[in-house]
């Protein structure tokens, strides 16, 4: 029997970047807030001395324990989905701070085109340019409206960057100057310039100097130690929720954090959300936490699944293409971040040094910055070079044609350990009628609740844009003087590897309740006091890494929640 707890103003489900921002803003506004995190508690001290490649990069220490819950996956509607069983095949962040703790820190704003992609595509190319079945839609908000939320998040996070010459002129500078320019980055930038492109230093959630954010949280300078993406920061020098918004929330007595709190249902009376039901996973005790406002700010999968398990909103039906929950699921899978790898016989780079978002990029082929009239795809992305800092297990990249093991592999893997550079393209991912989320009919979690089922396949759009990016990366590597250039292969099909954490949609935002689940404040159309915050709101995947847009939207939602608590009703 569930223990009924005292009602609070706001209950927040999931405490990563999104939930951390909502928590901090609500706590600052004096609301009584309870935040529920399914994972363990965490703080910077948990990550001192983490520099262990096997534990974090190969055994996925910071990722969800799949023994309790995973997703199932299939390509086509008539297939039986198989559970994605191991963390080699599926990674999603968990524990306090969520995905923010292991993120690399690459920071881009989405483009004006991204937010109004349907309108702007039709305006420039006509409606016929949009293929049948591509559920291309505007976000219900413009870049101009998003600007102040981006600015707010970038200041909270202390992003280190410089103006991208092709991006809209920033109203305020990045809060910190860019990271250092290393020899591989310089080589890339020089080559890109020679080819007439517009390189710049990638904006980074790694501090280029000591920084105090507007909430008074202090972040330390990045040490370029190389243990960054997949790791919590040893120095409190990476902007994550643990060193920014969570301590800000915790300063307030009206904020309470509960970890090991696994939410199973949103309590719903057909009109309003009444609170949530959760289980303390250490004791097994069930609790009901009533609240005036319920905020789902978990990972995309969890936000979708909780709505489905709670019978909230109309589930998407691919046969009729009606309904909204689970609709427009999209993600950056195996057709993205492809390009080419260059091997340099006479150069050695200090690739064992680095930082998560240390890199350079060009946006000449992002969004609609280039003419698509004669191209067989829409949208674009950045071409990036990154210097993460390679571990010894990672740095076994060898030229194509080398056997995967044995004497020749050993020779080449050692010779090329510090001599190869990867370029890749980070393209947009569209949403299609046949790609969606629902509940699996067979596989269950610890409590007997159905797992989430992913139905996803690649389209010509995905394959064509990937091929385009690979060609551009090859061209730049040639100009960089690589002796061997190996092009990545364009995948035929989505291969059920859920890697990289860039999966979005399913509870998408928009201006039409027929094709979106939430309005531009991420307030549910059907349920005034329920806000669904996070990557789940993306109607399509944008031109770049998702985190800054998730952060900006969370600030927008926080503003909306305050408005709702003042006036009630639908905000749009």
């Amino acid at each position, binding site marked *: 029997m569930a223990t009924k707890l005292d009602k609070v103003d706001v209950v927040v489900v999931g405490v990563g970047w999104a939930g951390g921002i909502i928590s901090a803003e609500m706590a600052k506004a004096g609301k009584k807030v309870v935040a529920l995190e399914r994972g363990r508690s965490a703080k910077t001290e948990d990550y001192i*001395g983490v520099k262990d490649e096997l534990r974090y990069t190969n055994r996925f220490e910071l990722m969800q324990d799949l023994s309790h819950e995973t997703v199932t996956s299939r390509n086509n509607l008539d297939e039986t989905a198989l559970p994605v069983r191991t963390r080699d095949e599926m990674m999603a962040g968990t524990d306090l701070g969520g995905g923010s703790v292991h993120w690399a820190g690459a920071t881009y704003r989405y483009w004006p085109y991204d937010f109004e992609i349907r309108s702007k595509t039709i305006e420039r190319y006509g409606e016929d340019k949009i293929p049948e079945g591509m559920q291309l839609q505007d976000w219900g908000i413009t870049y101009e409206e998003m600007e102040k939320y981006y600015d707010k998040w970038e200041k909270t996070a202390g992003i280190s960057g410089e103006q991208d010459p092709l991006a809209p002129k920033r109203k305020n500078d990045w809060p910190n100057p860019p990271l*250092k320019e290393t*020899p591989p980055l310089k080589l890339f930038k020089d080559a890109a310039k020679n080819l007439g492109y517009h390189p710049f230093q990638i904006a980074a959630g790694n501090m280029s100097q000591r920084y105090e954010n507007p909430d008074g949280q202090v972040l330390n300078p990045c040490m370029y130690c190389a243990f960054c*993406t997949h790791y919590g920061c040893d120095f409190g020098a990476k902007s994550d929720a643990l060193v920014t918004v969570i301590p800000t929330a915790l300063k307030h007595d009206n904020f309470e954090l509960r970890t090991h709190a696994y939410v199973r249902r949103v309590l719903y009376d057909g009109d309003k959300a009444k609170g949530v039901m959760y289980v303390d996973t250490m004791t097994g005790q069930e609790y009901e936490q009533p609240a005036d406002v319920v905020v789902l700010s978990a990972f995309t999968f969890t936000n979708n699944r909780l709505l489905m398990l709670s019978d909230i909103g109309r589930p998407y039906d691919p046969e009729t293409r009606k309904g909204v929950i689970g609709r427009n699921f999209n993600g950056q899978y195996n057709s993205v971040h492809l390009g080419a790898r260059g091997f340099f016989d006479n150069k050695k780079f*200090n690739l064992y040094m680095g930082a998560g978002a240390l890199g350079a990029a060009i946006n000449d082929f992002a969004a609609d910055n280039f003419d698509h009239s004669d191209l067989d795809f829409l949208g674009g992305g950045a071409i990036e070079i*990154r210097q993460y800092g390679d571990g010894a297990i990672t740095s076994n*990249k060898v030229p194509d044609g080398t056997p995967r*093991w044995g004497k020749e592999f050993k020779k080449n893997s050692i010779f090329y350990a510090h001599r190869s550079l990867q370029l890749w393209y980070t393209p947009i991912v569209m949403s299609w009628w046949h790609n969606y989320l629902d509940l699996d009919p067979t*596989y269950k979690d610890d409590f007997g609740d159905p797992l989430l089922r992913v139905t996803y396949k690649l389209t010509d759009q995905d394959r064509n844009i990937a091929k385009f990016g690979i060609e551009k990366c090859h061209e730049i590597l040639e100009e960089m003087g690589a002796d061997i250039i190996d092009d990545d292969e364009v995948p035929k099909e989505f291969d059920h*590897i859920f890697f990289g954490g860039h999966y979005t949609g399913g509870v998408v935002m928009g201006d039409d309740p027929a094709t979106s689940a939430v309005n531009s404040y991420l307030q549910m159309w059907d349920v005034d006091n329920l806000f669904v915050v996070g990557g789940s709101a993306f109607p399509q995947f944008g031109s770049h890494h998702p985190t800054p847009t998730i952060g900006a939207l969370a600030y927008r939602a926080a503003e909306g929640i305050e408005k709702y608590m003042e006036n009630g009703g639908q905000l749009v």
Partner: protein
Amino acid sequence: MAEKNEEQLSRRRFLKNSGMVAGGVVGGSLLGGLLTSQLQTKDTTDSKQENEPLQHARMFFSRKEDFDTLAAATERIFPEDDLGPGAIELGVPYFIDKQLAGSWGTNAKAYMRDPFDQNEHVYEYQHKDTRQDKAGPNTSTQAPTPTPRYQTRMNRGELFLAGIRRIQEVSEEEYGETFVALDAEQQDKILQMFEAGEVEMNAVAPVTFFNFLLQTTLEGVYSDPVYGGNKNMMGWKMKEYPGPRMGYTEEIEEEEFIVMEPKSLRDYQGGGTSNGNQTG
């Protein structure tokens, strides 16, 4: 090439004749190993064993023959040569043994609920060969080996054992000898059969087993010595990899490649029982 093969063969014969395989002592009977090591007082075998780390004992494999087969297979994947030590000398077999004895080997964090279908759909799934470093956003931080596809009820420990036993059977079927007794070329042929899915295994694809073997061998060569492989950081030295360090703020803009004497996680964490408080 012929010369190299000859070298490998003679090294193998030496190992066989001297009773040294996989850093341990081979005896004819259950107590043979122990007896041999006591009787051979001042020879190289004995001094070599004294230099073995104390962690080099089996925690997972109960049968020595299984462990020796594993060891010989890892040595083919990462052989000793002019560049430096191979998998056996680096302690890779013990690394894998320890991995299988722990939570990874028992699939503690994997989804292991029924049903585990065994049909054509699952077969296709198991034979997808996306490399871990080509699997989407930021995956260039992963090793370039194929992701092992998991659709079997066996945990990783059981899967490895089944794979090793199958290697032994296939060796007998193909050559009438144990895998350990085969020459290098024959051993490679057997491993290639698993890699290509040309052998049958019960309830798991041989390629899944092979991909794990490949992945764990590389991990054993290059992971921190705390896990039992990368003996004396010899894997890192071979690759001019410095191990975990405080940071590189001063060095990262340098054009020249910088070689540093490697440090391990123990150094970095200030491990052992001593710490600043006790000395200061």
